Each structure stands twice: as structure tokens, then as C-alpha cells.
């Protein structure tokens, strides 16, 4: 082989760099679902936890339009319970611990929603 002493180390370096995402992923610690501080004394959220985990942002989006634009401020959940549509006065009444509930998941997923620029975060961060 011509120039084998250049080509073979070059191929090795290229393959090493090219597969960087794969082996760096194997070396870093595995993603773990953060441990959230769930509200004490409350068993269930307005909807099943699985649904809330996946779609809470969608619910908040629809809540805002329904409350503000349609004037509908009561949410009848799928189990028939009625809730006032309000982030500060309904959601945060139970989830009073923003740092250990909202922020933990948002931080570990690198999302920074700007809810709290306007909405007042709950004071009781216990």
C-alpha cells in the first residue's frame, strides 16, 4: 500500500471522530428521570399523571385561550371534577414547590419556559 503510514492512522482518527456521539453517549451517565416533590396530601392531579406529564403545556395553552378569550373559567376534568382555570390559583395551590417540581424536569430537559416572568411563583417553597 502506498503511504500506508499516513492513511491507516488517518482512517483510525476519522472513525474515532465520526463515532464520537456513540461512544461519548456510552461513557456519560445515563439520563435519569428527576425525583419530583409531589404535593403532600394530594393523590391525583386534574387528569391522570401520564397525561399531565406529556400534555401539561398543551392544557395550559388551551386553558389560557378558553379563560381569556371564551370566558370559560371552569375545567370539567375527564372524571367529572370541576376546576377553576388558573395557573396561580389552581395548579400552584397544590404544586407549591416550584423549585423541586417544575424546575427539576425543565432543567434536566433544558427547557426554560417563561411562565414566571409574569405569573407569580408560589411563595411556600417547602
Amino acid at each position: 500500500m502506498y503511504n500506508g503510514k499516513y492513511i491507516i492512522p488517518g482512517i483510525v482518527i476519522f472513525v474515532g471522530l465520526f463515532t464520537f456521539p456513540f461512544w461519548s453517549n456510552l461513557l456519560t451517565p445515563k439520563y435519569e428521570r428527576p425525583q419530583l416533590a409531589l404535593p403532600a396530601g394530594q393523590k391525583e392531579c386534574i387528569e391522570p399523571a401520564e397525561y399531565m406529564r406529556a400534555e401539561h403545556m398543551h392544557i395550559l395553552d388551551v386553558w389560557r385561550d378558553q379563560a381569556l378569550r371564551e370566558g370559560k373559567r371552569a375545567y370539567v376534568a375527564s372524571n367529572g371534577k370541576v376546576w377553576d382555570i388558573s395557573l396561580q390559583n389552581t395548579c400552584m395551590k397544590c404544586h407549591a414547590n416550584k423549585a423541586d417540581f417544575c424546575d427539576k424536569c425543565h432543567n434536566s430537559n433544558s427547557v426554560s419556559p417563561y411562565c414566571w416572568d409574569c405569573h407569580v411563583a408560589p411563595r411556600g417553597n417547602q
Partner: protein
Amino acid sequence: MSTTRRQFLKIAGLSVFGLGASTALDAADAVAKDMPGAKYEVGGKHLAAKRWAMVIDTRKLESREDYARIIDACHKVHNVPSIPTKQEIKWIWTDKYDRVFTDDMSQHLSPAVREKDYLLLCNHCENPPCVRVCPTKATFKRADGIVVMDYHRCIGCRFCMAGCPYGARSFNFGDPRPYLKEVNPAFPTRMRGVVEKCTFCSERLEVGLLPACVEASNGAILFGDLDDPNSPVRKALAENFSIRRKPSIGTQPGVYYIV
């Protein structure tokens, strides 16, 4: 087996279509879903009207304390900051006659009327210019006549401030929170870069309460349905001579003044 170019292109085209369709179906599947069975309803306690309106009986408002009490009540409930510069935020404020009723041509008004302070707030117009000019529909008029804002949508272009003939809108040039002495935890604040204004307390009407300024006014401010002849506002308007701000421009304000 020999394949003609024509057959090859047919099969290739079909395969590309199949691949594309499956990704499109996956994407459609990923769209956010409402919880089956969930519904949205109007709250049981809310006050309803066809056209909300306000009557301010200026004869019953005399002292500086009267105005301060009303303004404080509003600003406390809605987390309105007190910024001491030109960048102030105003939901409800006062001014003198010649800057309030600019259409009035009377040269020899009684000095008492001319020197008096008048309460000013958003007029919740029938034809609101701010709604017409808003490029994002952040400002809109509800079916009951209240002009409100969705701060989530406001991009801070300030067209509405240019459009409003009453100066009822204020812009947040900076973060308003440092200027709040105490924060009402039941109501949001605003952020840097959005416009804000009086909401006719639409959030209080939803839970069966009258606007904060009406409650604090000891009967000097009346609130009710303009389309209902038996409402307190219609009765007051029927019995007294009333004026509105800048009637000639056709905005049809919803705030009336008994002078």
C-alpha cells in the same frame, strides 16, 4: 429478469410516496391531544352582561384621599407598579378637565369644574382603535364589550398606544417587579416589553365580584349592563346629565361622567 427504466421509476416513485406518507402519519400522531371527556364551561358565579359600562359620579369624589383610595385598590389587586418616572404604568389615574374632555368648547366653565380632578381609565370602547391596530390580536374585544389583552401574545410594538385616543395604555420599558411593594399572589404581574391597561376587572366579574375601583368608591362609581334599562348605570344615566371623553371621534366609550 430485465427492468425497464419506466418500471424502475414507477417502483421508486411509489416507495418514496409510501415513506413520506408514513412520516406524515407519525407527525400527525404526535400532535397534542385533549383529554377525552374534558370540557370547558363558564363558571357558576360569573356576572354576565351584554355591554358592561361604568358611570363615574364626579360630584361624589372630592378629596385627594377619595382618588387615592380608588387608585390604590385597583393597583394593589392588579400588581400595578408605581414607577416615579415617565415610564410610569397607569391603569386608573386622574387629570384636569381641559385634558380629559378635550372636545369641550365652553370658554367660561365654572372654576370648580375646571379645577377638579377626574378619574381616568380605559374606556372599553364600542369601536376600539387599539384592537384594530394590534397586529397579533393580543388586544381584543369580548362579547360583553370589555377590551382586554392577552399578554402572552403582546410583542410590544406599541401600535395600540398610538391608536388609543385616551392614553389608557402603558408600556413596560423594564421589569416592573422591582417597583412592586407587595405582590398579590392571586394575579400575575407583567414582564418587560408588553403593553398593559385596565381590564374592567374581567377576572373579578368571572367570580362574581364588581371591579375593585367600584367597590372602593363608596357608590361614586357605578357599574352595570348598558343594555339593561334597570341596571344601575342606565338609571344613573337616565336621571343625570352625563358626558363622555372625545365623543366626536366615534369610539363610543363605555365610561360615562356625571359632572
